[in-house]
């Protein structure tokens, strides 16, 4: 079987050409299948007496997989030509390119390859040579390509683009059969098109004149080749059919075209001599901030988790908010199981104070949504979520709606009007298109901050805690220590922004008299900035402390703020004495030990540096892994001079050899057997006492065997 794809700009007459060529091929005794690959789905109309046939995509949308039959989407037309029509979405929604992919996949699965055909003709829209519309160009489909163009510039521009697409799908064998000039009657158009053909290394294989016979035949719902087989036009069409056969049987060679660059196209349009190709590296003029064409994964940052997950995680920290993930079920599954497992773990440890829920919903986008648009799916999911009784609903978009361009904002505006008592929040994270996890988290945090009522009056004695990660507080003991530290000054928590909170608590955020960052890192500062822009509130200048240095500073700052200096000094004195005694007792185990600290999660490391130095350790490296965020992430530390940034595991491995450490403290959860002792980076909560407990843990690590006995087992393969 020979497969030929006929490409051309929309409206150029390629469907008319295709149908006529199919009939001309059939009249030579060949069995032909014509597949229309244009969303306007009129390719086969002239083969079916002017009637439109059911499109493959409509069929896929309406008929469940087990019930699909090939005979439902392939019908026999004029001269026995078999007809199939891809179809596509309404203009402006969905992804027509994806529709072409699905059409080919569906035809293959239903057994179209087993049909008894000699030639398959693909009639393809050539205005957009995206991945989907380029499918017929692939090696496993088109053996030959014909371009239909007129003498108008945009038509040749489209033809030139298709040649570029053909270059990208190079099979090693030339495949361009030639150009059909479908005349529009433009002055000098034949000469222009022949210049274009010559410049691109191909030829005009037929010139089809403007002829009233086309209009007459189309009005009757038939092809010229069928109604006027003895006409001049029919003879031209027969010649094209013969050309296809000649190429297919090797009597005539196809060519590999050399498409023109933009300057050359300008010369062609202006009627100038076409200059030689500049041959320079093309520069992408896309939405990607002007970055150059990539040739390697090394050319860009690697994001480990997507913005959609970050946004979802942020909203799920609010117990009474439902998150509707606008995307496929797999996204929901991956996010919900990860998040659910974490919450169940916290609940089991008694530090999650509310009953765990699973408030993630999903629009369950499938192939039909990616083709026809997913707004209907989203609307249905929103209505169902409203019916469940949620009053705050967040919509987070994944890659699929981001790529196909669903207008979620317009829908939410409309749905909000129908449900005035429900607040809808849109986070157009678009999967990873808007960045990685933290980017999405911050986008959601902005939406959540908008819920804060700045007019709520302040009540003394309450404090808000600001942070993206409350990991350090997620043990019962650490939570109690936090409560004790606050209670010492008569304070208690109002709102955790963001952790285990509710929409009411966020709304009443301004009830607290103080806001404190849980840790002094870039993420906490960014959250504080988001809150400040909403409320005008600035966080207390000293964040929640970890370690002796920060704790004493914090005590004095809070004591001064609240007029409780004496209480602060008393506690500072007690804890300093306790700390000093600890150091004396334990210093002998740390003194002179060479230590590498590797930090991936942008935790505060100052307390650890202080602690190790106080214990006499020799810190030979403090490495921070680079941030995968779109705009990077700053590091805040009192020990900046000790910190190596953009420190990757490869650097660690080199340091392990060259620096010969005794101990590695790292939050990268993987063992490094046999190299040196390795301790987990501590989640130490706040204050000083838990830091001392962590020091005891590290001390034990240095006294215990480096490799656990279980590692002697072998992985079952």
């Amino acid at each position: 079987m020979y497969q030929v794809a006929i490409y051309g700009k929309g409206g150029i007459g390629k469907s008319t050409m295709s149908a006529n060529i199919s009939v001309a091929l059939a009249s030579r005794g060949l069995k032909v299948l014509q597949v229309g690959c244009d969303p306007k789905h009129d390719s086969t109309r002239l083969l079916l007496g002017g009637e439109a046939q059911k499109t493959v995509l409509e069929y896929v949308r309406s008929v469940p997989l087990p019930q699909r039959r090939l005979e439902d989407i392939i019908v026999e037309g004029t001269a026995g030509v078999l007809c199939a029509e891809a179809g596509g979405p309404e203009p402006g929604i969905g992804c027509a390119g994806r529709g072409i992919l699905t059409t080919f996949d569906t035809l293959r699965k239903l057994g179209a390859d087993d049909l008894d055909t000699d030639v398959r003709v693909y009639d393809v829209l050539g205005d957009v040579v995206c991945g989907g519309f380029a499918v017929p160009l692939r090696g496993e489909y088109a053996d030959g390509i014909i371009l239909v163009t007129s003498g108008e510039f945009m038509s040749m521009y489209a033809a030139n683009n298709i040649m570029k697409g053909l270059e990208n799908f190079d099979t090693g064998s030339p495949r361009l059969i030639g150009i059909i000039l479908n005349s529009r009657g433009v002055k000098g158009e034949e000469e222009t098109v022949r210049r274009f053909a010559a410049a691109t290394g191909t030829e005009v294989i037929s010139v089809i004149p403007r002829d009233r016979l086309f209009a007459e035949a189309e009005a009757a719902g038939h092809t010229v080749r069928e109604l006027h087989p003895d006409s001049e036009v029919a003879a031209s069409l027969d010649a094209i059919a013969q050309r296809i056969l000649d190429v297919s049987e090797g009597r005539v060679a196809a060519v590999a075209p050399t498409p023109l660059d933009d300057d050359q196209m300008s010369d062609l349009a202006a009627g100038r001599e076409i200059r030689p190709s500049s041959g320079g590296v093309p520069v992408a003029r896309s939405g990607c901030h002007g970055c150059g064409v990539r040739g390697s994964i090394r050319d860009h940052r690697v994001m480990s988790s997507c913005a959609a997950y970050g946004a979802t995680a942020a909203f799920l920290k609010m117990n009474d908010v439902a998150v509707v993930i606008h995307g496929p079920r797999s996204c929901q599954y991956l996010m919900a199981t990860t998040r659910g497992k974490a919450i169940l773990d916290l609940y089991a440890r008694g530090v999650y104070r509310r009953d765990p829920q699973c408030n993630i919903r999903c629009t369950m986008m499938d192939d039909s949504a990616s083709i026809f648009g997913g707004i209907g799916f989203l609307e249905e999911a929103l209505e169902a979520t409203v019916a469940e009784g949620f009053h705050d609903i967040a919509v987070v978009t994944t890659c699929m709606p981001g790529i196909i361009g669903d207008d979620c904002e317009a829908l939410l505006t409309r749905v909000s009007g129908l449900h005035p008592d429900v607040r809808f929040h849109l986070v157009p994270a678009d999967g990873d298109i808007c960045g990685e996890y933290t980017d999405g988290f911050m986008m959601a945090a902005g939406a959540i901050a908008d819920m804060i009522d700045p007019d709520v009056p302040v009540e003394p004695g309450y404090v808000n805690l600001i942070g993206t990660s409350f990991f350090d507080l997620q043990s019962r003991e650490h939570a109690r220590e936090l409560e004790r530290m606050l209670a010492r000054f008569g304070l208690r928590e109002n709102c955790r922004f963001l952790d285990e909170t509710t929409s009411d608590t966020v709304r009443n955020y301004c009830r607290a008299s103080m806001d404190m960052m849980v840790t002094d890192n870039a993420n906490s500062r960014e959250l504080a900035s988001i809150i400040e822009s909403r409320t005008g509130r600035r966080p207390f200048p000293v964040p929640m402390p970890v370690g002796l240095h920060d704790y004493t500073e914090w005590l004095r700052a809070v004591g001064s703020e609240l007029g409780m200096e004496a209480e602060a000094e008393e506690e500072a004195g007690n804890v300093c004495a306790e700390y000093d005694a600890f150091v004396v007792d334990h210093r002998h185990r740390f003194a002179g030990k060479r230590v590498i600290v590797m930090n991936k999660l942008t935790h505060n490391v100052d307390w650890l540096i202080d602690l190790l130095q106080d214990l006499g350790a020799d810190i030979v490296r403090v490495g921070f892994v680079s941030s995968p965020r779109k705009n990077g992430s700053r590091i805040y530390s009192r020990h900046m001079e000790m910190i190596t940034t953009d420190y990757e595991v490869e650097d660690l491995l080199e340091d392990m050899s060259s620096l010969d450490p005794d101990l590695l403290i790292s939050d990268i959860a993987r063992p490094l057997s046999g190299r040196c002792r390795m301790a987990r980076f501590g989640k130490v909560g706040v204050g000083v006492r838990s830091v001392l407990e962590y020091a005891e843990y590290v001390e034990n690590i240095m006294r215990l065997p480096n490799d656990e006995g279980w590692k002697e087992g072998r992985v079952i393969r």
Partner: protein
Amino acid sequence: MTRVLPDGFNGAIMAVESISDAMVFLHGPGGCRVRHMVHSTAVYPRDDPDDDLDFFSPYFYGYPRVPATYLDEYDFINGAAYKVREGLPIVESRRPEFAVIINSPGAGLIGDNHEKAIRDLGLESKVVYMDESLVSMPVTMCYGHMLRTVLEGLDPVRDSPRPGTVVLLGLTIMDKDWRAATEELCGLVESMGLEVVAVPGAGATVAELRGSLNAEFAVVVCPEACQGLVDYYADNGVRIIRSPHGAPVGFDATEGWIRTVAEAAGCDPAPALARVRRARDRVLEKFVGMKYNALRIKGMTFSAAGIASVVRPLTEWLYTYLCMAPVAVDVDPGADPDEVDAVRSFLESIDYAESFGRPPVHGCGAVFSEGLTAVTMSVNGGCRVGVPIGHSSMGLDDVIPRPIYGVQGSLYILDEMLHGARVN
């Protein structure tokens, strides 16, 4: 409670990951990679812990499973075939016996040409690609479909059929404690004198898959997870054995499954049935010993949700063996129609017709479902006992074998019920 289920995209990746020496090359964003990587590593680690250090190369970035192209906005706009061209040789350098390029849902929209990359690198015999819309398929259906695609890519031949040999179909590494499930069912089959030569979908190697076409029988465990595969083996002359009792869940269906295999293969079921008999006696001993707990089970309501061929025998068994009331019975997308008919008929026959199609209900005694739903409902007061029977909960498995199939599976379910009744 709203259940959260995987789809065909998850199923396709895990199906390839189920093959001991094969590898997925994911054409998609890092977010899609990381969770599949974690899931795969959690349920089926292939590398020693220290081996991670050998994977600090592009596309792997320090983790051995599910290397990916890390698509971002640039790639979605401009296409990312260059990454597949660059990455495939790096993946191949790890020497998998077979590899499958799988598009993420977003990558499926940009239409990169993997066929060309494979051809240009001369890897047609070792690499296939999957660019179908996987999210439109139920997870189990896609799991079987993916395995069939791999088999078709391997293109094995049935050149030396071996009598008395068996392949087990319909087990997946997404099953709860799949390793123990495989060992349990292989043990039952082998106790009858048959030899299991491959378990496609649950730890088979590429060589085993190639050789599996020479098996005399293909025994179905869970039909939903081997659609397509069954036809493939049947078309190649392997005799299919499928139990009319559904998957071997609970003592009764396990016995039915054993008898079906024995009858079709012409072997003696007695050794396998004896295992069930002993387990039944052990249960009697324990239940008599803890009769006050056992008494609490009778009359409890339950919700069961999952794969139809699992839910059907489970529902029947809980009703007859423990006298529990089925108040909600729901089956996952892609259910086997025969199993759906059977469970619906059963519910009608016991006057619980209204329970069919209901997701797990708040306030029932026990919930049998995928782990996340079962555990969440048990801790938030939605039920007294939550028993995970469905897709694995990302590696939160026990060290003690606790599958849901066969004799061990029956004991696991009874253990959960007895302890659940005790503490509630």
